């Protein structure tokens, strides 16, 4: 993507999402700090990948950005208009924005109503937004959408259970496309699919993006897939964005200790390379987001942690062109 066309479509500033947890009401109220002060921008036409392990808040971030979850605090600006701002008390009605922002879910069967036919599922989105005034237009649009995602037009009369996982995911994609959105959050769209089907869906998402100029936020735990599809990648750990860079830059020159670990742990389908390389093994598990560690959230597992890391939370700063990292060590090394 050339520099001139880089127009910000979405801006997120210090976004926070806490979920209350049940507990002893007499004592302090506890929260799962799922997303902690994340700031990032998504440019028009790009794919921003989001990787991290389970429980790192990547799905919550994706859902909070399109306000399927109400943010706890922060600011979201879509195409120049603030749609949420906790300081200025802005919280717009989302219905008009749902036409622009859509989501594809991880579990294809769980996200389709089993009692509705595929035609009804896709048509519902059209009805809500009143996009097709006549019945004929509606049927044509549904047929066109099904063809676009590689399904047969006759499939409109079938129910979700009659499809395989890969086909169900295609229905999910057709539903998201129905309202002609600009921005789609792809929340682990392929991890539930078989290996040989995954690449079909990845290619389809790439084609749709090229044809319609879509912008994606692509969330997945599989770094190889994210690297393949994304222009830029953000790495999350325990609710925090720890590194953000162009995907080649991030995979070849990671700067954050956690990113280095994550990349070294990705299995390579190459016996000689994978046996020769040095894996960085972390001690222990991810701490609980209810009682996250003080300071840098990674310090409990980081081999380079210092006293400063234990006390002060690092902020995301630019260390190379477009390469952001949140780590105290980077600051010291210049």
């Amino acid at each position, binding site marked *: 993507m050339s520099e001139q066309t880089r127009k910000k479509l979405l801006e997120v500033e210090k976004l926070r999402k806490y979920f209350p947890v049940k507990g002893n009401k007499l004592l302090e109220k506890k929260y799962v700090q799922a997303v902690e002060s994340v700031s990032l921008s998504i440019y028009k036409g790009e794919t921003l990948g989001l990787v991290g392990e389970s429980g790192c808040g990547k799905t919550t971030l994706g859902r909070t950005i399109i306000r399927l979850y109400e943010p706890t605090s922060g600011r979201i600006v879509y195409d120049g208009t603030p749609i949420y701002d906790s300081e200025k008390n802005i919280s717009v009605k989302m219905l008009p924005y749902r036409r622009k922002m859509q989501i594809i879910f991880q579990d294809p069967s769980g996200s389709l109503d089993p009692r509705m036919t595929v035609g009804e599922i896709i048509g519902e989105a059209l009805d809500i937004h009143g996009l097709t005034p006549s019945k004929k237009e509606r049927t044509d649009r549904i047929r066109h959408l099904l063809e676009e995602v590689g399904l047969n037009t006759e499939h409109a009369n079938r129910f979700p259970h009659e499809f395989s996982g890969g086909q169900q995911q295609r229905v999910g994609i057709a539903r998201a496309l129905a309202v002609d959105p600009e921005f789609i959050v792809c929340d682990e769209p392929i991890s539930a699919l078989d290996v040989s089907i995954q*690449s079909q869906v990845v290619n389809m998402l790439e084609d749709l993006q090229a044809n319609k100029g879509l912008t994606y936020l692509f969330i997945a735990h599989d770094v190889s897939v994210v690297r393949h599809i994304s222009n830029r990648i953000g790495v999350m750990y325990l609710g925090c964005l720890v590194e953000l860079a162009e995907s080649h830059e991030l995979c070849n020159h990671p700067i954050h200790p956690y990113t280095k670990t994550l990349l070294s742990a990705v299995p390579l389908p190459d016996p000689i390379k994978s046996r020769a390389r040095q894996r960085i*093994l972390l001690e222990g598990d991810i701490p609980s987001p209810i009682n996250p560690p003080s300071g840098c959230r990674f310090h409990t597992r980081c081999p380079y942690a210092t006293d400063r890391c234990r006390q002060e939370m690092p902020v995301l700063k630019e260390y190379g062109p477009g390469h952001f990292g949140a780590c105290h060590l980077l600051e010291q090394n210049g």
Partner: protein
Amino acid sequence: MEENKLLLKVKDLKVSFFTPAGEVKAVDGISYALGYNEVMGIVGESGSGKSVEAYSIIGLLQNPGRVIGGSIEFEGENLLEYTPEQMRQFRGNKVSMIFQNPMTCLNPVYTIGNQLTEALTCHDKTISKEEARKKAIEMLELVGINNAEKRMNQYPHEFSGGMRQRAMIAMALICSPKLLIADEPTTALDVTIQAQILELMKDLQRKENTSIIFITHNLGVVADICDRISVMYAGRIVEQGKVNDIFYDPQHPYTRRLLQSIPRLDEEDDERLIPIEGTPIDLLNPPQGCNFGPRCTECMKICLRQKPPLAQVGEGHISACWLHFKDALEKEGEK
């Protein structure tokens, strides 16, 4: 490989599920041999029969599944002729299994220590309580669980995912089995935890000289840990060979396409993925010819008519595809 050095020999194994809709040939005539101290990977998509095959070795096949043909020889004895009591003795002692989801095979109402020592006392009636406890603690330490004494008295829910998988490995190895079957042991785990568990399994394999059958759908995982690999598709082994042969010189179209279709972290250029078109076959109505035929780009006429035979394509490297017989077929005028 010499015959007498084989630990496990599976010959023409056939397993079918008799469902109301008809017979599902989950495993359709597979053969392989496993030597002592060898790690074999079985790779396949869901529904390829890789787990069913493993369950029939350990005798845990559930209704309506039945072994309908072939033999499974373990150190020269046919397991299919074992009585239930013999099988019970055999399980845990000589072969054990770890599963994808540790929570399904750890009992939530017993402590980890209780479950570990139970495995010992079950198979060795002479062992005393103290001895069993000591051995269990040793085992937990061996799999990298800190504070083993304290952990012994904890329940599975107090363990994290990675720790549970470690506890399960400890339980599987506590009777020093000769064969360990690992069914997608790292699929439910995060990559950094997966790396820990793989490293642990490699380490234990070296220390204990256990043979391992490693079942997975992730080609990246088997590249690291396995000596040999069998690739399964729709109930059959389509290709089998040494790990380097499979990754650097794949012969079967399915293996080749599978390797091309996955995005790789070590690639420099963003080439478009080459997907395998179509969907896996319906096992209720398998095609007459090669199971991969309908999705294969190099499919010939004969592929749709007849199942392909196994061809020896290199030392210890076999592949089931008509392409290897192309020259002979052309001579006969068939193509």
